[in-house]
């Protein structure tokens, strides 16, 4: 599995072969607060890079989840739909959102590595 990459919309992505796993970052969950609702794309649909691919709602507000890469949705994590609190518990592990069969791995090139993302997150939240 590749090292995780990060988007400015606070998603993380890892790549294994041509299947990408996508979730939201720990930093995102800390900004959102307690997550109480999650909506994921349907299996079999195609999503476009930077397009909406889901929704999370905290007790405070709703926010869209974007996909940092284009592809076909091949799997979704029903566990986080049934128990959205899991997203706060392990956002960058067990609480992944969806898996995509990707079209073009070069779309990942514009994303940040962990160090870059941490710097970005720190700068944008202060």
């Amino acid at each position, binding site marked *: 599995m590749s090292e995780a990459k990060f988007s400015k919309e606070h998603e993380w992505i890892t790549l294994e072969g041509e299947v990408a796993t996508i979730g939201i970052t720990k930093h995102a969950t800390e900004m959102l*607060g*307690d997550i*109480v*609702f999650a*909506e994921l794309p349907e299996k079999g649909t195609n999503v476009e890079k930077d397009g909406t691919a889901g*929704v999370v*709602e*905290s*007790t*405070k507000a*709703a926010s869209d989840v974007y996909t940092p890469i284009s592809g076909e949705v091949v799997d979704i994590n029903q566990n986080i739909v049934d128990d*959205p*609190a899991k997203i706060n518990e392990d956002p960058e592990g067990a609480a992944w959102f969806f898996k995509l069969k990707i079209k073009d791995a070069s779309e990942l090139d514009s994303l940040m590595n962990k160090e870059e993302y941490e710097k970005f997150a720190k700068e944008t939240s202060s």
Partner: protein
Amino acid sequence: MNKKTPLYNLHIQHGAKMVEFAGYQMPIQYKSGIIQEHKFTRENAGIFDVSHMGQLFITGSDQLTENLEKIFPVNLKNLKTNQSKYSFLMNEHGGIYDDLIITKLKDSYLIILNAACKKQDFEIIKKKLDDKYEINLDESLSLIAIQGPKAKDVLGKVVSNINNLKFMNGGEFEYDNSNIYITRSGYTGEDGFEISIDNQKAEKFVDRLINYGAKLIGLGARDTLRLEAGLCLYGNDLDEKTSPIEANLKWAIPKSRVDSNYPGSDIIKKQIDDGVKTLRVGIKPETRVIARGNTKIFDQNDKEIGKVTSGTFGPSVECSIAMGYVENNYSPTNTKIFLEVRGKKVPANVCDLPFYKKNYVKGEKNV
């Protein structure tokens, strides 16, 4: 520049995330988060800084009760000293300028007003009252609420004899060589108290409550608690265009006042006699989807029939909950309705309020 309450430093010390609210810097949540804070209040004792709310004192002996009855649709003549009632400041069209708690004191009345409305309320009330009364929006006092099943035990360690208070009653209590005014009231659906205390003494007072096991709770949990309890938030569920009858708060206007004169009384009487077109109801979506304020409500035939005014996830009832206004014929319990969230129609049902019910303590003697 937003104002700070006397508890500002304490909020920061306890890791509060501060937001602007009604011109004040207020804590939306602390480190443990809204759900934990909500549950802690339901199971233990939560402390709320409500110092941003207005504490309006109106003093005078000459016909004050009679003159206030011309402003508020409440029976003040029958109110005993230290008794409180929920009421409204209304306009001539029967709409609500503010919802409030009025308490009869010895030679005066204390009215607790919403923060965002307090200045306008003050001007309206002042204009309606004679110059012979002293009317004071007291900024030298903080207001602290302690709510939850253990509120009486925690507060009881700091102030003696508070457990004799009955719900919606108040009294003066000795604290730190002076008197503070405490009412048994609150806005969470739990037993609890509201303490009016000198700004200089507020921080130490709250510190002591914390030392006895209570925790600071932010505005986020205050909102989920009040919504579970079916209580209205002014600005969301109530406004200048909505009457108490439409808001399903008819219970707050006593029968003895229906035929008497107060702002909007003609309209209120007509609405009581003839009914209203829209009514506030409780709403339970059938899924976990949250329907926030302004969500449109439809019937089975796709006809728009109203809108949501408050919606959240209820941490104690563990489901999505909302309140809103629907056309009157859709107001019966269990009526099937649909909420338009992000372009999709989510099935929901009209339900009874409150979503969460716990019996208020009536006050115990000789405890």
